[in-house]
């Protein structure tokens, strides 16, 4: 298998994972017996997991210079963590 095919397969898997997480977010209220607050926290978590996957694999920050990757990982942590904390404690 050539390197190009490997890259294409990897991108396809990334898409499949992103679509699966979207389906999980959509079906979570029916699938997961959680309180409304816990369910909301789960949805925020799933959203930022998807964001991280896009940044690392589609935007290729995962294989970029470490400071660049760290800056975007920090954004995910601050934006996602902040959103989650505000949702849980306001």
């Amino acid at each position: 298998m050539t390197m190009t095919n490997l890259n294409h397969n990897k991108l396809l898997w990334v898409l499949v994972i992103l679509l699966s997480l979207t389906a999980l977010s959509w079906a979570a209220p029916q699938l997961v017996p959680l309180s409304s607050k816990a369910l909301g926290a789960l949805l925020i978590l799933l959203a930022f997991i998807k964001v991280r996957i896009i940044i690392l694999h589609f935007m290729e920050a995962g294989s970029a210079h470490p400071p660049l990757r760290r800056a975007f990982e920090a954004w995910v942590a601050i934006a996602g963590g902040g959103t989650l904390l505000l949702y849980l404690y306001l």
Partner: protein
Amino acid sequence: MNTTSKSPCTTTDIEATPASLGQNPTGVAQIKTTSARIPGELGLWIFLLADMSIFALYFWVFIWNQSLHPEQFLQGQASLNHSLGLLNTVILLSSSYFAAMAVHGARGQNLDSFRRNIQLTIACGAGFLLVKAIEYGEKFSAGLHIASNEFYSYYFAFTGIHMVHVVIGLSLLTYMLLSFRTEAQIRQQMANIEGTVLYWHMVDLLWVVLFSLIYLLQ
């Protein structure tokens, strides 16, 4: 736009200490080489980070106001067309895949793959706008607009600002499709191709969060 191609940046970390050199019978320092690069241009990444940080503030403002007007937000979210929101999420995620494939096509000097995938990305972006127009049309015909209540103020403001980003991204992708028609051109414009696609991925990831906050979160 930049007319020169960008060569990969390479970093070399030399891991050699007196102790490790002393243990090495040949006396040659062990050198660990790692190769990493910056897709597109560094300035664009800084812009993307700044834009994403502004959107992070939007997310926080939305959550803050949701806590102030819980009933209004609950009713507002219930009145949205969730299926159209889901459809737009699937469309944008797919468009990001096609955009990433276009970059791989360009790197491999595969003009057909590059152009086909850019066309698919543009088609997805246009589809997103069409679905959004249908959704806005539903709201307007029901008499709902940006001044209807707090929820709809944020709904129209945030999805509207995001839509402006989609239009900008589509314009850049269309320019690229119309301008880069030969293998030599895509080789020369690699940094611009990567930059445009990076911007498109940002549009995608911002929608992923907006979809969860505006449509799903209760």
